[in-house]
């Protein structure tokens, strides 16, 4: 009974560490941009999904209620979605279900974050873990990435240089993205010599703490055909969750290994089936992925089926994942170059949709994109979202 739905409007503010605007103001800026691209007014939006992750970065309980009026939510159905870092992916999923269900014809998915508004985001992120058994040990999202990195080193022989190459490519790609927070020509040496945060993760293996907003407009097939010459059809969408306990995913009895992202592979399998994708490497031209650390991208591209487990390190030494490679991974610079946590995964959906819409910034646009994929990760690397958008629907 599922109806077709498409993204016809995308809005992203510039991502910075500046503190010029409040959270509702940033959300509104993104919403207005998305509406402008869609050629719609706020009156035509039937429901709003607000993408808001932990409120502690902003210190307001809860920022979604603060933003209702700013994003045109007055007298409309409005809900907040929150799955940690995966929030934007889950919010896009909720927005899609709103339309695919046949209940709404036009939905705005919007949000913003300001990760630098608090003194130290890692102090907040430490509270991902329970207060009894795990929080005491200084666990953060950075130590989480370090655990994944040491397991990849153990399992696949991954080197710090191989991880560094991921940052070099993403920073170079971000130079084509006016919205990106971090960008520039950096070298493997620059990454290797940047200070260690949590061995083997260094400063340049790590995403920034960004402020900024993102929004998409999702509409029914009838509206999409009326309003847009080349909509980004939502062809596949899925999410898989796993345990908060990292230690369950290593050693003899583990059903999955923290080195890999089998949860994302499971989600991708379903999303690809929905999208009719059989050979992801041949059929997908762009993957804008949620890799807040260099090592995480290596696991993601394998889970997305672009190569086998343990192969991404070597392939990343060639042009395989470059703009002119076999599949362009994060032409936007991805999450290594912008991480406004509440909407980071929504940015990935925005940047994938822009590629299909043909409306990416000129140098960021990959030619002839038929299918693009966006991913998200949240919690203790435990929520994995995926959305496939394409130039035609099934």
């Amino acid at each position, binding site marked *: 009974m599922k109806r077709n739905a498409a993204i016809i409007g995308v809005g992203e503010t510039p991502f910075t560490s*500046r*503190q*010029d*605007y409040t959270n509702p103001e940033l959300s509104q800026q993104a919403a207005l941009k998305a509406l402008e691209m869609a050629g719609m007014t706020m009156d035509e939006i039937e429901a709003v999904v607000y993408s808001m992750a932990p409120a*502690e970065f902003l*210190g307001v309980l809860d920022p979604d209620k603060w933003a209702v009026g700013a994003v045109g939510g007055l007298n409309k159905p409005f809900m907040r979605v929150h799955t940690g870092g995966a929030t934007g992916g889950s919010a896009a999923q909720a927005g899609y279900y709103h339309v695919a269900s046949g209940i709404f014809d036009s939905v705005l998915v919007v949000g913003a974050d300001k990760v630098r508004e608090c*003194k*130290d985001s*890692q*102090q907040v992120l*430490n509270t991902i873990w*329970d*207060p*009894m*058994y*795990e929080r*005491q*040990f*200084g*666990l*953060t999202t*950075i*130590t989480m990435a*370090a*655990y*994944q990195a*040491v*397991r990849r080193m*153990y399992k696949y022989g991954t080197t710090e240089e191989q991880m560094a190459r991921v940052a070099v490519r993403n920073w170079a790609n971000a130079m084509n993205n006016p919205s990106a927070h971090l960008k520039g020509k950096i070298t493997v040496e620059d990454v290797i010599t940047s*200070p*260690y*945060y*949590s*061995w*083997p*993760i260094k400063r340049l293996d790590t995403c920034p703490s960004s402020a900024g907003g993102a929004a998409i407009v999702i509409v029914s097939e009838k509206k999409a055909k009326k309003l847009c010459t080349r909509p980004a059809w939502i062809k596949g969408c899925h999410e898989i969750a796993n*345990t908060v*306990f*990292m*230690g*369950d995913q*290593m*050693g*003899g*009895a*583990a*059903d999955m290994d*923290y080195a890999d992202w089998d949860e994302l592979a499971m989600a991708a399998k379903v999303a690809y089936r929905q999208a009719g994708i059989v050979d992801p490497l041949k059929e997908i031209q762009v993957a804008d992925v949620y890799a807040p650390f260099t090592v995480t991208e290596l696991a993601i591209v394998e889970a997305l089926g672009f190569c086998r487990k343990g192969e991404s390190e070597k392939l990343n030494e060639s042009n395989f994942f470059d703009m002119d490679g076999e599949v362009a991974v994060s032409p936007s610079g991805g999450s290594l170059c912008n991480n406004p946590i509440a909407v980071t995964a929504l940015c990935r959906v925005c940047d994938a949709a822009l590629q299909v819409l043909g409306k990416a910034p000129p140098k960021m646009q990959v030619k002839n994109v038929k299918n693009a994929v966006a991913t998200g990760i949240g919690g203790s690397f435990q929520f994995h979202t995926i959305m496939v958008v394409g130039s035609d629907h099934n």
Partner: protein
Amino acid sequence: MKKHEEAMTLKGGWSVEYNYAVGPTGSKFFTALKDEAKIIAPKCPKCNLVMLPPRSFCERCFVPADEWVEVGKEGTIQAFTIVPYFFESLPDPPYATALVMLDGANTAMANFVKNVDLSNLKEAAKKLAIGKRVKVVFEKKREGTINDFHYELI
């Protein structure tokens, strides 16, 4: 915004105290740790998974886990890191943590690895490699918290 106006910020904070419920399973685990210097773990009656940190149910089989076993006081490193950088309200650097599979357990549990020279990160990382053996060292004065023990290399 006019040229002479600057975007303003306002200082504030957010501090709340809690009395976290540890639950019957956690209370049993911490009591054994405090009173007997033992690490005990619940076992799934269906798949026999011995789970640390302890929990009152098997997440995979979705059944209650109320059988308990004592696990070994040695184990194997499954993942580790060394943090040389200061983060607000987190332990003073440098510190090393590891996820360790204690003998007889089927999942790995986090704790500090102490008494390792962390002055040279690369050298310390070699010592803490995955597969290295560690022992559980109990604190003399135990308070019924996860900090009642730590790991040390054997």
